[in-house]
Every structure is written in C-alpha cells, then in structure tokens.
C-alpha cells in the first residue's frame, strides 16, 4: 500500500515523459489525475491510520512493511504510518493536488519538466514520511533536493539560481553530517541495523549521544529552519514558483520537525534534554525575529516566508517543551502551518500571475475588485493567526500551554510572537485589500476563477476540519507522542513531575 | 656476511651513487652517458656480489653495451654538446684515469672475493638448493597442510627454495624458473614489448609518411 502510494506520482512522472511538450492541456490533466489519485489514496490511508492508531499501544504502525533490503548491513525496507506521519502524508497528497490544479498556469515554458519535477518531489516526500528505516529515510530525504532544486532554479524568479544553489548546499551540508551520525548509530549494536524500531530499543549511553544528536539536529534544524540556519528560506520561498513555495512551506519544512519527533528526540533523549534549553531559546528567537522581520517586508511573499520562520519556531518550542501538551501542539501546529501557509502562497501566487508584482505598495482596494478572493484570503490569514475554530488556534494554544508548564517567561515571549503575527498579517491584509484602488492594473484584475477555486477548496476544508475537530488528529497521534515524551528522562533532570502527570490527565480528557 | 663482502659492497655502492650524481650534474651529454655506463657497471658488480652472475652479464651486455651505444649514437647524431668545448682536457684525463683505475681495482677485487667464496661451497649449496626447491614445489600446488607443524615445514621448504643471498643462481635455474613459475609474466612481457613496438611505429609514422611523400616528389 505505502509502496504504491510512493510510486504513484513517480509512475505518473515517468508516463508524463513520453508526452510532448506541446500538449499542455493533456500534460496538465494527466498530472492532475495522478496527484488526485495520490491525494485520495493518502486520505484513505490516513483514515485507516486513525482507525488503527487511536488508543493503540506505542509504535503501532498502519500498513507496516518490513523486508530485508541489504541483510549484510541491516538495512530493511521498513515502512509504516502512525498518527503523525499519516497526517503529513495526507497533507502531502492534498498539497500535490493543489499545486497541479492551482499553480501550473503560471508556468510558461517547460511545463513537462515542471510537472515531472513536481511529481518526483511528491514521491520523495511521501517516502520520507513513510520510512521507518534510516537508510530508506536518508535516500528519500536527499532525493527531495533534486526536484526542488530544479523547481526553484528553472522556474523561479529573478534570483532563482542563487536561491536554488543556496537551498541545495545548505541542506546538503546538514544532511551529509547526518549521514555520518546515522552510520555511527547504526554500527553501535552487535549487528548493524538501520531499522528505527530496533534502534529505539538499543539506546546509546547518554554521553555518547551528544555528537550524533547534534549532527541530526543540525540537518533537521536547517530544514525546519531554526533561527540561525534560516537564511536559505526567504530566498528559496521568494524565488520559487508558486507550486515550489507551497510544497516547500507545506511539507518540506515539516520533514525537519518530523525528523525531530521521529528520530532526533526518541533516539537521543538524553542529549535532546541536555541541549533542550538551547533549542527553546533559538525557537523563541525565531518566533520574535521572524515576526519582526515579517512586519517590515514590502513583499507579500517574503512576508509569508518570514512568517514561516516564526510559525516553525512555535513548532520547535512545542517539541522541546518535552511535555505531552507541547509535543502534541508542535505536531498539530506543523500541519496547520502547512495548510495555512500553503494556502497563503497559493493565493499570493494567484495575484502575482495577474499583476506580476508582489509588492504590498502596488496593491490596495482589492476587496472591491476581487470579493471572493479577498474572503478566502481573509479566512487563510485568520487561520494563520490562530482564530479559534480554525486550524491555527489549537496548535498555538497547546504549544503556549505546554511551554508555560516549563517556563512562564518563554511562554510569555512566545505569546508576544502570537500578537505580532496577528499584527503583521492583518496589517498586510489591510494594506492590500482595503483602501482606495491603487492603480488601473489592479482595477483590471479578475476575481478568482473556478479552477483556482477548486484548488483552494481542499485547503479550506482542512483548515476548518483541523480547527473544529482537532481531537481526532490529536488522538491518532497520541500513542506515539506519549511514547516520545516518556523517552525523555525528564524526572532525572529536575523537571516538574506532578505537573507532568496532571498534564497527561488533562490531555486524556 | 663477511667483512670483505661488506667493504666491496660499500665501495661499489658509493661508486654507483657518485656516477649517478655525476651523470645528472655533468653538462656534456656524452659525459653523462659515460657516467651512466660507469653506474651500470658498478651495479653489475653488485649483482655479482649478490650471487647473480647471469644478471650481471646481462646488465653489462644489454645496458652498458647495447643500449648505451645507442644512446651515444643518438647523442652524436644530434650533434649535441659540440658547442660546449671543455677547455681543461688535462684535468679530465686525470679524472678519467683515476676512475678507470678505481674501476679496474674494484672489478678485480670483487671478482676475486666472489670467486673464492663460490669455489669453496658451491656444489653442496647447489645440491641443497635443488633438493629444497623440489620439496618446496612439491608442496606448492597441493592441498593446504593439515597441521601447523606441516605448515611450518612447508614455509621452511619454500624459504629454502628461494635463492639465498650469497649463493649463486645458475642460468639453468633462471631458465627453469622463467618457463615454469614465471611462465605467465614471461609471456605477457612479450605483449608489453609489442605495445611498445606498435607505439613507436605510431609515433614515427607521420614522419615516415612525410619522408616517403618527399621521396615520391623528388623521383617524379
């Protein structure tokens, strides 16, 4: 099942290759078909995951496949989904469809290559989330780079080459060190093994965890991106074509946070705890820095890009609170960010196609010109700032609550970030959509068309569903999250055990 | 190793090194070539000392004889170094005489030492070597020896089958080795020579073609 899911887009890409460049419509429709198929399959997969994983013991995986791949090295073809990866797989499937439906009109030439790269990218990302073996994980992790590199470099904006190379090299440096750490970990036991579920059981001694943890954490932190390693992100986001930005913000960044949840924290809990304060500090810095920089951006896309830095800071803050509330908050927040930021990029892409500008100053009074579009934008902005009832609220609330259990000061600072987020997004909204109509070009902009609307619908649905029924998703992820939380030896390190247990009870309700 | 052996070796080695150095540093190509001859002869004598008279003869005959003659021929053919007229002929002659004298002494000394040593123990040594060689070869392709003892014996036999320093290797032994133990490298070496030959032809061919074209032009 999972193999099929991973191979579907890849197969689609291969089949697309045989079509000629000239058949634009046929190319698009065929790609759409493949992504639609993948999307539907991923939704079904997640529904099954909810069934299997809710209330199940820890490390229960749906659709588990486990076959030896290279027996001499202990490499296994181990795939499986749980409440966390299943959710991300569904997000990937949905976003793949959204990209092809909503963000291919702007691609003027080389549509075939574009769609092929997009489909290959989708395959690779699905692979990352399905993998339960470090070798397989690493292959997919790195394989993501190639299509993304082409997407940014070939179909991006003016500074696309710079952005593409920067993105590639930044990520590569991090992940190569991860490769060494990965091998180091795999060769610790009696027999080499790359199977995560086996590695969970043979933990390294606390003092030997530090360096491998740092190597893994560096790779993931670059991908997230955590504050000092974020500089590739604004460039890549801004220069990437709309579909690239959606994939990048929607799921690529989640590979980093997912890596923390799945690998870095449970494999090296002592080291994670040891370095925890650093990560919390960086996360809070990221929240505030991202928000402040976003506040002064004249470019809408750049603004959204910096808002990503801030949002991902929340996710990291949640994860490194090391309590169930924070972890769950981080988990759900990364999905929320994927949905709402993906939607923002999609919408920004739509007006860029019409106006060929992303400068806030070039717009104004869009509300009267494009009423439907403006309402959708408002919905997305509200979801992003965390209005209750929409997706952003749950995550931010849980993260802040979780963080406050660890440190009131940190939570307060992060809370300032929430307010700032509301400020820069709403201020941007005000400048772009209200006020007098800026120019004749704006006046000539047509409202959102039906195909564009179709691409937005799945995201809108997700925003509302995630906002209204978060417990479904949280419950599915709970076994794993609870297990991850138990791995971290908080009690040994002067934590607050009573509050911890209280929390656990609180969440159980 | 006797003291005589050591002295002979050290002197010969010194001569060889000095000759090599002079070969590199002398300005006249003919001198260089002659120093190379000296160097080769000194090495040949070292081979004699080590009990490899055949190699020594080959060295002198092929390198010092044939190849160096070719070298000198080419140097003279190209008229190199004629411009470098070295004025000081007398000092050169003195050096030449001294070197030649030294060489003669060494040749004699080396020969005498070697010869006397050989005469003393040669027949027995050869017989022992042959036996050991046979034993070693019998053990070679067979199944792996079962016990460590047998292994050690095999090792010893193999070691004995190797010609020891200070014990002359006959031409016969070399011939047998070439066509049994070293048959493959011996054959493959012919391939190597073939490559070199083809290569020489390929390099020379443009020149040959040009010349034949020229000849045709002249005759027509």
């Amino acid at each position, binding site marked *: 099942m999972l193999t099929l899911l991973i191979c579907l887009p890849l197969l689609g890409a291969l089949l697309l290759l045989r079509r000629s460049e000239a058949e634009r419509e046929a190319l698009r429709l065929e790609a759409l078909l493949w992504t639609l198929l993948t999307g539907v399959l991923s939704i079904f997969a997640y529904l099954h995951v909810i069934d299997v994983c809710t209330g199940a013991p820890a490390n229960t995986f749906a659709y588990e496949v486990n076959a030896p791949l290279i027996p001499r090295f202990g490499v296994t073809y181990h795939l499986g989904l749980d409440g966390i990866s299943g959710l991300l797989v569904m997000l990937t499937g949905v976003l793949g469809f959204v990209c092809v439906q909503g963000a291919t009109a702007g691609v003027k030439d080389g549509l075939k290559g574009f769609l092929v790269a997009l489909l290959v990218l989708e395959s690779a990302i699905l692979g990352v989330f399905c993998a339960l073996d470090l070798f397989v994980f690493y*292959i997919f992790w790195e394989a993501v780079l190639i299509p993304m590199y082409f997407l940014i470099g070939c179909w991006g904006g003016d500074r696309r080459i710079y952005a593409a190379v920067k993105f590639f090299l930044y990520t590569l440096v991090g992940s190569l060190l991860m490769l060494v750490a990965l091998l180091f970990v795999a060769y610790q036991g009696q027999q080499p093994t790359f199977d995560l579920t086996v590695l969970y059981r043979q933990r390294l001694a606390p003092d030997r965890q530090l360096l491998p943890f740092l190597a893994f954490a560096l790779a993931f932190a670059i991908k997230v991106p955590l504050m000092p390693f974020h500089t590739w992100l604004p460039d890549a986001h801004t220069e990437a074509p709309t579909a690239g930005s959606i994939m990048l913000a929607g799921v690529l960044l989640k590979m980093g946070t997912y890596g923390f949840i799945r690998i870095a924290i449970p494999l090296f809990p002592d080291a994670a705890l040891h370095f925890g304060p650093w990560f919390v500090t960086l996360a809070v810095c990221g929240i505030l820095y991202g928000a402040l920089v976003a506040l002064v951006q004249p470019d809408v896309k750049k603004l959204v890009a910096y808002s990503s830095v801030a949002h991902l800071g929340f996710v990291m803050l949640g994860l490194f609170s090391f309590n169930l509330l924070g972890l769950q908050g981080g988990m759900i927040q990364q999905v929320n960010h994927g949905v709402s930021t993906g939607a923002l990029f999609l919408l920004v892409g739509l007006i860029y196609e019409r106006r060929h500008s992303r400068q806030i100053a070039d717009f104004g009074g869009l509300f009267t010109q494009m009423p439907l579009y403006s309402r959708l934008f408002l919905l997305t902005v509200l979801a992003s700032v965390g209005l209750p009832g929409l997706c952003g609220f749950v995550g931010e609330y849980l993260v802040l609550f979780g963080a406050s259990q660890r440190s009131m000061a940190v939570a307060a600072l992060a809370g300032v970030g929430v307010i700032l987020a509301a400020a820069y997004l709403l201020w941007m909204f005000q400048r772009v959509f209200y006020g007098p109509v800026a120019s004749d070009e704006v006046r000539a902009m047509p409202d959102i068309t039906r195909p564009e609307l179709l691409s937005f619908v799945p995201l809108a649905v997700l925003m509302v569903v995630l906002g209204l029924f978060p417990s479904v998703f949280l419950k599915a992820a709970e076994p794993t999250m609870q297990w991850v939380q138990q791995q971290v030896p908080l009690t040994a390190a002067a934590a607050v055990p009573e509050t911890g247990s209280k929390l656990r009870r609180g969440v159980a309700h | 190793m006797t003291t005589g052996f050591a002295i002979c070796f050290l002197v010969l080695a010194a001569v060889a090194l000095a000759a090599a150095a002079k070969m590199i540093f002398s300005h006249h190509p003919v001198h260089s070539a002659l120093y190379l001859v000296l160097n080769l002869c000194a090495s040949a004598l070292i081979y004699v000392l080590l009990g490899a008279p055949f190699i020594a003869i080959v060295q002198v005959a092929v390198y010092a004889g044939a190849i160096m003659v070719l070298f000198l021929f080419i140097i003279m053919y190209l008229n190199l170094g004629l411009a470098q007229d070295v004025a000081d002929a007398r000092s050169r002659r003195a050096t030449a005489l001294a070197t030649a004298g030294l060489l003669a002494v060494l040749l004699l000394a080396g020969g005498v030492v070697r010869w006397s040593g050989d005469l003393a123990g040669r027949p027995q040594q050869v017989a022992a070597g042959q036996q050991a060689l046979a034993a070693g070869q019998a053990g070679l*392709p067979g199944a792996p020896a079962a016990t460590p003892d047998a292994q050690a014996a095999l090792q010893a036999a193999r070691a004995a089958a190797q010609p020891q320093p200070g014990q002359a290797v006959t031409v016969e032994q070399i011939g047998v080795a070439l066509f049994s133990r070293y048959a493959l*490298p011996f054959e493959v070496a012919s391939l190597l020579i073939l490559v070199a030959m083809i290569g020489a032809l390929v390099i020379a061919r443009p020149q040959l073609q040009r010349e034949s074209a020229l000849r045709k032009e002249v005759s027509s």
Partner: protein
Amino acid sequence: MDFRPPDMNLWAALPTAVVGATALVTLLLSVLRPAGAARRSISFTLFGLALAAVGCLPAAIFRPGPSFQGMLVLDPAAVLLSLLLLGATAVCVLLASRYLVHDGVDAAEAAVLLTLGCAGMLFMVSAGNLLMVFIGLETMSVALYILAGLAGARDRTSHEAALKYLLLGAFATGFLVYGMAFVYGATGSLDLREIGARIAGGGAAPGFLAVGLALLLIGLGFKVALVPFHMWAPDVYEGAPTTVAAYMAVGVKVAAFMALLRVFNVAAGGAAASWQAAVAWLAVLTMLVGNLVALAQTSLKRLLAYSSIAHAGYLAVGLAAGGAAGAQAVLFYSVAYGFMTLGAFVVLLALERADDKPQLDDLRGLRRRHPLLAAALATFMFALAGIPPLSGFLGKWLLISAAVQAGQVPLAVAAVLCSAIAAFYYLRIVVYSYMREPADDASPVTLAAETRQALAACLIGTLLCSFPFGLWLLSAAGWAAGALR
C-alpha cells in the same frame, strides 16, 4: 634440476587471452586488407571485447583459484572489474571510431592500442603477484602514453601531454619497482598471498616492509593521481584527446585501485598499522585539493580532471578503512565511478567543437539545445555529487560506512565535508545547462550515432548502479570482497 610444467588454468586467462588475441587479429587484418579496415576493425574489436566479457563467465561460475603459480587470480572481484573495464574500453573504442578518427588517427591503430591497454588493465585487476601488477601496469601505461599523443597532428598540447605522462609515469614506475624490491626483501616473496602469509606469521622485516609499501603507494598513487602525486593529471587530461582522457580517468584509476586493494588491503592487511594512517591522510588531502581546485575551473575538461582526482580520494577512504567493508566499498565505487565519469566525458565529447576545448559557458541553455543530453549530464553530475538515489550516493554510503565501521569517524566527516564542497561545482554545471539562457550564437547540438550509443550505455550503467537496482551490484561487490584473498 627437474622441470615442472606450469599450472596453466586456461579459464583464468581466458578473458585476457581473448582481448590480446583481438588486438593482434585486428592489427593483422588492418595490415593485410587495408580497404575498409577502419569500420571492420572497430566492429571486430567490439566483438572481441564482448567475447572476452562472455569469457569472464566461466571464471565467475567455476571460480578457478590462483592460477599460473599464483600469478593470475580471476576471483569474483577481478571478474566484476574486468567486466567494467571491458565495457569502458568498448565505449572508448566506439568514441574513438568517431572522434579520434576525426583527429586524423587511424581507427585500427586506436582500437588496437585501446585493446592492448585493456589487456594490461585486466592483468592488473587479476594480478596475484607483484610481477603481474608491474607488467600489467606497464602494458597499460605504454599504450596510454601513445594514445595521449595521438592528436598531436592537430593539437600541440597533445604532444605535451604525452611527454609529461611518459616522463612522470616512468618516474612513478621507478618508485613502484623499488617498492616491490623492498617488499621482496622484507618478505622474501613477490606472491601476494605469500606476502600476506609472511606478514601474518610475523616473518616480515617491518622496517623494510614499511619502506616498500610507502614506495608502492607512491608509485600507484601517481597512476591514480592521489595528491600530492597528481600534478600531471590536469595537464595530461586536458591535452590528451578527450576519448583517451576518459579512458585514463576510468580505466587506469579502476585498475590501479584494484592493484592497491590487492597489495594493501589484502596482502598487507596484517601490517595495516604501517600504512593506514598514511593512506587516510592522502585521502583527505586528495579530496580537499581535488575539490577545492575544481571549484575554480572553467574548462570542463580540467574540471573533470580535478573531479576525478577528488574521486581517487574517496576511493582511498575505502582503502584506508580496510577490511572486507572497505574492499566492498572500493569495488562498488569503482564500478559506479566508472560509469558516471565515462558518461560525463561522453557529454563533453558531444559538445566539443573542432577548434576549442569546451568551457563552462558552452553549456549555457543546454536544456533547450538538447534536452536529452542535458538530462544525461545532470544525471551524471548528481551521481558524481553523490545525491541519492543515484549510484554515487550508494558508493559514498558504503565508503563512509566502512570508515565509520573501522572507527575512523574523522575520516568519514572529512569525506562528507569534501563532498559538500564538490556538490557546488557539480551543481554549477547543472546551473549552466539548465538555468542559464543559451548564448545567441549557440548552435543546436546534434549527436552522432556512436555518441548516442555510448551515452546510452553509460546512462544505463549509472542507473543500474543506483538505488534500488544498485543493491544487486552492492551485494555482488560484498560477495566479491568477501572472496578476496
């Protein structure tokens, strides 16, 4: 003195014999019937190489032990690399029939020299004795000295390349032979298995052995262009005809690394303490210098030359790691490297114009001028950079895991950092061919039939070495490494 007939296991000599015979027959045919010799000798040579590849199969099945008194060891590792070398030679012969002939070289000559060089390489990879290493190396080198100078009529740098290669090669051979003499002095044998046994039994003089191994390392290091013995490589690669440069980059390196593997990893494995650190340092130095200098290159040929130097460094990591894991890594990486480097050179040839050497700028907008060529080039570059799931990644993964397994984590870290540097210039090639617009006067690229076939062969080879197909090769390499004795 009794004469024992040599132990002649002809299965073991079959591939090399076929290759040698092919060369001789081609030579004779082209002399006896000059009319139409060019086409015929090319096709006959290709046929002969294919026959030799088939000739490897009995060896893979019957597993003849050391033959010819231990001179020739056609073990699985040798079969694996022989097949690669035969394939590389076939590709080069194909290319030579198009490009070298263009330079005014006789097709039969080129084919014969390439085939004889191949015979030398085959002897090197299956050598069981230092003598065979030497003779194989010389046969290969002499053929390449000539080949490097073949384009001399058109391009004077070709002569310079040939002369430089000859002089430095002869120098390196001196080191090699001197080293062999020392090893013989220390262990009393030239037979690799026997040397191993002596070392294991403590019967080797450690000082002499260390000196001998050091000299051998220098001699073979020259051939594979390990820093600091790499000075010749960029000039020679640039001056030599591109077909020959490709042959050097792949054939020589693979053959010489197999010899290094046999001498150091297998025979001198018991004395690892005396050479492991040296090889590790050479590896780090080679990766660092090769990659850093490659960053500054604008001539594609020089860039590939430095890249191949850097790859010698990666291979040396496997050598330094030692053991079966290291051997497996070297074997796998050799095959993967062979295909991807050969492929890169084929693309280079396709871009080459009569008057000048291709520069980075000539790649501009290749995506529009010839999409297929651009895609192939990108594949080879990503493979060389070691990005999964391509072949280079599996190779690097094996190398690094061998180093980690051997407890040499700093070496592994150095290797990955260097490959991060390397990614930069490989990416630049992709940037030029995909993301920059073509120059106004850029002509469309057309591929000759031979080039297309060669390109297809390299591409298929690279993909077969990539994940997931590469896993078969990976286990084959593991099996072959296990059988190395």
